[in-house]
C-alpha cells in the first residue's frame, strides 16, 4: 500500500532504508498496473487497433496507394452532406428537448430528501437499463397512425384526423429523447446534489426572492453538470443507429446508418472507414471543445 510506504518513509530518518522502500513501492506500483492490463489489452486489440486500421483504410485505395477519394466523395456528394446535416440537426434538437425536460426533473429530485429521491430515481434508472430496442419498439407502436398517441390527440380535440408521427424526424426525435433523457438527468442530478443547500438558504435569508436565488446562486452552480450532461447526450446522439433506422422508416438517415450501408454497398472498406473517421473526429472535437469550456469555467468559479 503506497500510503503505508509513504507513512514509513516519513517516519524513518531520511536515507535509512530509502532504496529498499522505493524498490518496494515500484514493485507495488507495477503490480497494481498489472491489474489494469487485461482491460487495457482488450481495449487495445478490440478498440484502438481496429480503429487505427480504419484510419489507414480510409486513405488507401485498392491498389494500395494513398488516396483522398473517400473523403472527397463525402464532400462532393450532396447526399452525404445532407446526412451529416440531418444527424446534427436531430441530435441538437434531441439534446435541447432533453435539457428542457431533464433540468426541471433533476432539479426537483435534487431538492427532495435523499430517500424520496432514491425511490423516484428508479423511474430514471429503470428506463436507462431497459433495452433500447424495446423502447424504440414501444414508440413505433404508440406513434403509428392508429396508435395511442393519435387516438389521444384526436380524443382531446387537438387533431381532427391521425397525423404522421413516425417514419419522420418527429418520430425519431421523440424516440431518441426518451432514450437519451436518463443520460442527461443522472449526471445532472449528481452534480446538483453536490451543491450546498445552505448557499441558497443564506441567499434567501439575505432577502433574495426565490426566483432570484435560483437564478443567481443555484443555476450558475449547476451549469458545469448541465454542460457535462448535455455534451454526453449530444455525442451519443451523433452515433445513433437503431432508433433512426426503425422510427425513421428509411426517411431519416443518420451517419451511422450510412456507414452500415457502405459496408454492404462497397467492395472495399475505404468509404465506410472515411465516414467513420469523420464521425469520430466530429465526436472528439465536440468533446474537447466542451472540456475546454468547462476548464475555463472551473478556473473562473474556483
Amino acid at each position: 500500500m503506497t500510503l503505508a510506504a509513504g507513512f514509513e518513509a516519513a517516519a524513518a530518518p531520511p536515507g535509512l532504508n530509502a532504496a529498499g522502500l522505493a524498490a518496494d513501492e515500484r514493485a507495488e506500483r507495477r503490480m497494481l498496473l498489472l491489474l489494469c492490463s487485461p482491460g487495457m489489452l482488450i481495449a487495445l486489440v478490440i478498440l484502438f487497433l481496429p480503429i487505427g486500421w480504419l484510419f489507414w483504410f480510409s486513405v488507401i485505395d485498392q491498389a494500395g496507394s494513398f488516396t483522398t477519394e473517400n473523403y472527397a466523395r463525402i464532400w462532393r456528394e450532396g447526399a452525404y452532406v445532407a446526412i451529416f446535416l440531418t444527424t446534427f440537426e436531430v441530435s441538437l434538437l434531441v439534446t435541447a428537448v432533453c435539457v428542457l425536460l431533464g433540468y426541471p426533473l433533476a432539479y426537483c429530485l435534487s431538492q427532495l430528501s435523499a430517500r424520496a429521491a432514491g425511490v423516484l430515481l428508479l423511474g430514471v434508472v429503470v428506463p436507462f437499463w431497459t433495452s433500447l430496442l424495446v423502447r424504440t419498439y414501444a414508440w413505433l407502436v404508440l406513434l403509428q397512425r392508429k396508435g395511442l398517441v393519435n387516438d389521444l390527440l384526436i380524443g382531446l380535440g387537438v387533431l381532427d384526423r391521425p397525423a404522421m408521427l413516425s417514419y419522420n424526424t418527429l418520430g425519431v426525435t421523440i424516440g431518441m429523447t426518451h432514450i437519451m433523457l436518463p443520460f442527461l438527468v443522472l449526471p445532472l442530478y449528481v452534480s446538483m446534489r453536490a451543491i450546498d443547500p445552505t448557499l441558497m438558504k443564506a441567499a434567501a435569508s439575505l432577502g433574495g426572492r426565490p426566483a432570484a436565488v435560483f437564478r443567481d446562486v443555484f443555476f450558475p452552480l449547476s451549469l458545469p453538470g448541465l454542460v457535462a450532461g448535455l455534451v454526453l447526450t449530444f455525442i451519443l446522439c451523433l452515433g445513433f443507429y437503431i432508433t433512426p433506422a426503425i422510427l425513421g422508416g428509411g426517411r431519416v438517415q443518420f451517419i451511422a446508418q450510412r456507414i452500415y450501408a457502405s459496408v454492404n454497398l462497397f467492395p472495399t472498406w475505404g468509404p465506410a472507414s472515411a465516414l467513420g473517421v469523420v464521425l469520430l473526429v466530429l465526436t472528439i472535437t465536440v468533446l474537447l471543445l466542451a472540456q475546454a469550456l468547462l476548464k475555463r469555467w472551473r478556473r473562473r468559479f474556483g
Partner: protein
Amino acid sequence: MEHYIPHRRRLWLYALSALILGFLILPTLIVIPMSFSASDALQFPPRGFSWRWYEAYLGTPQWRDATLVSLKVSVLTMLLATPIGTAAAYGLHFGRFRFALAVYGSLVASLMVPVILIAIGVFFLYAKLGLVNTIPGLVLADVLLAVPFVLIVVTAGLKSFDANQEMVARSLGAGRLRAFLGVTLPQIWRSVLAGALFAFIAAFDEVVIATLISGGEMATLTNRMFSSLRDEVDPTIAAISTLLIAVTTIPPLLGHLISARRGRR
C-alpha cells in the same frame, strides 16, 4: 428537509416532474398489454386476451436459438468483464501511477466512441481472425463494452471503503490477495454484483455490433428483433419485449428494496 422555497410554492415543479417521469416510465409499459393481445393488429387497448405471442416466441426455433446465443454470450461476458473491471478498479484506486488518467481513459474509451465505429472495426478485425459469427467474437466485443460499467460501479464502491482495514489485515501478515478476498471484497460485494449485472445487461442489450458480426444460427436475440422490426411489426416482439422488461427491471428494483431495508435497520 427545509428549502429556500416553500413546498406549496413549488407544486407546479412537482407536477411537471411527475409528467416527465411519466414520459420516461409509461411508454415502455405499453408493450405489456400488447403482448397478451388476441389479434394480429397492434391496437390499443388490445382486443381479447391470449398467450399466443408467447407461444409463438417459445415455439419458433429461431427465437429459441437466438435467446440461447444471447444468454450464453451475456453470461460469458459477465464472467469475464466482472473480474477484469474489478481488478482494474482496484489497481487504479490504489495505484498512484503517472499515467493513471490515460489508463482510465483507455479503459472507458468504448463508452465515448460511437458503437457503429467499434462495430465496423471489430467486423474487420474478426474477418481477419475468423471470429465473425462466433460466440468468442461476440463475447470479446461485449467485454469491451461492459468493462467500463464494472469499473465505474466498483470504483464508486471502493471510494466508500476504508482502505486502512485492508492495510491492517496486511500488516498482520495477510497477503494482498487474501486481504482483498477476506476484508475488502466482503464490503464491496454489492458494487461488484451491480457491476456484474450491468455487464450482463450491456451484453444482452447490445444490438449494433451483433447486427454486423452475427447472423444465421449465431444471431443474437437483439439481432433477430431488430431485423424483424424493420420488416414487419409482429406482436411476438411485444411478448419478447415484455420478458426483456421483466429481466432488466426486476434486478434494480430488488437492489433498491434490499438497500432500503438495510437503511432502515
